[in-house]
């Protein structure tokens, strides 16, 4: 073992005690890398994390290929919610369970047939399957409308309209945002209107309105924070009002 330098000031800062989670270790190693002036430590550790994650996918694929149900169960647990989320966003909430099942089946069968050539790219493979499923469903809808005289009731168009209760709640929150906008200067209001309503990019807005990126981000985050603040105040006020109303209406006091 190499003898350490006799000058302890030349030694790098000691590593903290081993931590349980990989995330905490990553944060700790980032700090360690900065303190020891090693620019490569962070990139190196990130690579280490990525290879650990890839190893996880490879192991999962191996277990599925071996035919054990635990592998398929793990695959389902990891991806089911994400697939549901993606399909719901693109196709609506109708018949989701069937679509998730179909996607899951395609993934498992492809893995078992050895079609997944890079097991470490399992996430990308699942994403591709799900995107194709969305595309196929949309194409089927278009085809049905084009070719069939009668409506195919098994292929439904999702109803994305809000119910009256959701509309009322949305309006209430829009009013809060309007209060936030009202508190801003005309220029700041224009910046946010350009970004959110006219969907202009940050780069375009900053260039045309002579803003730095930092100024732009600060304005956005201040507006968001103010909205959150107003929302909490409103909720607290309503809770208090309700409590007072309940106490006086029931006639009970403690």
């Amino acid at each position, binding site marked *: 073992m190499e003898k350490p330098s006799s000058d302890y000031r030349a030694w790098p800062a000691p590593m903290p005690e081993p931590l349980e989670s990989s995330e905490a270790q990553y944060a700790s190693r980032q700090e360690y890398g900065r303190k020891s002036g090693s620019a490569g430590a962070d990139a190196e550790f990130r690579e280490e994390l990525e290879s650990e994650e890839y190893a996880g996918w490879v192991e999962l694929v191996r277990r599925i290929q071996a035919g054990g149900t635990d592998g398929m169960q793990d695959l389902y647990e990891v991806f089911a919610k994400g697939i549901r989320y993606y399909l719901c966003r693109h196709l609506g909430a109708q018949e989701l369970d069937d679509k998730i099942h179909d996607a899951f089946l395609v993934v498992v069968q492809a893995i078992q047939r050895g079609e997944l050539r890079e097991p470490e790219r399992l996430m990308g493979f699942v994403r591709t399957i799900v995107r194709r499923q969305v595309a196929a469903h949309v194409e089927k809808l278009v085809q049905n409308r084009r070719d069939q005289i009668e409506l195919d009731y098994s292929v439904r168009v999702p109803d994305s309209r809000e119910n009256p209760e959701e509309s009322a709640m949305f309006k209430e929150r829009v009013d809060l945002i309007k209060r936030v906008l009202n508190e801003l200067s005309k220029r700041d209001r224009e910046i946010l209107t350009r970004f959110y309503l006219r969907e202009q990019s940050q780069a375009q807005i900053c260039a045309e309105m002579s803003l730095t990126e930092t100024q732009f981000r600060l304005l956005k985050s201040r507006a968001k924070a103010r909205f959150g603040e107003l929302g909490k105040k409103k*909720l607290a006020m309503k809770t208090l009002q309700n409590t007072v109303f309940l106490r006086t209406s029931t006639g009970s006091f403690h």
Partner: protein
Amino acid sequence: MLKLLQAHPSEEILEGYAFGRLDAASLESFEEHLLICEECQSALDQTEDYIRLMKAAAREFEERAPESWRWPWPRWGAAVAAAVVCFAGLFYLRPAPANIDVPVALVSTRGEASVAHAPAHRVLGLDVAEPLAAGSYRVEVVTEAGRVVWTRQTEAGSGKLSVRVREGLGRGAYWVRVYDASGLLREFGLRVE
């Protein structure tokens, strides 16, 4: 169980995705992350919700005159009213009695009438009105923003599923979700007032 070791995407990435502005490589990377990260799914929902609110507000703001934004009463009047309410609330505020359950029947048909209503800060006895197979279920109460505020593992006996939310819920709109081993089974609207 596999752990997610990738960094979570920034707010700029979330906004970029919501606006459909991500380049192909970023889109691929983000969507792959989204497949396995519930935290980012929720964050994306919140980002899109905020963008919708901002759009609606900015649109209305542009269309309406500034005078319509003034408060109907003088500010000092509103401040006095708020102070009176706060004072009364602080004076009379007590925890609600926790020993009496408020029964709430959960029905999953669509429409305004099927949203259950319950009082805030009371112990709630949630009963699923539809028969379920005997077995183990997980019940979650989720805010409109997708944040889980209450969860419990329970057993359905004789086809009935009932849970008791002892902590009570604050005012607002919630979803009550019932999961079995295969995933989400039922979802019910709950309005707490």
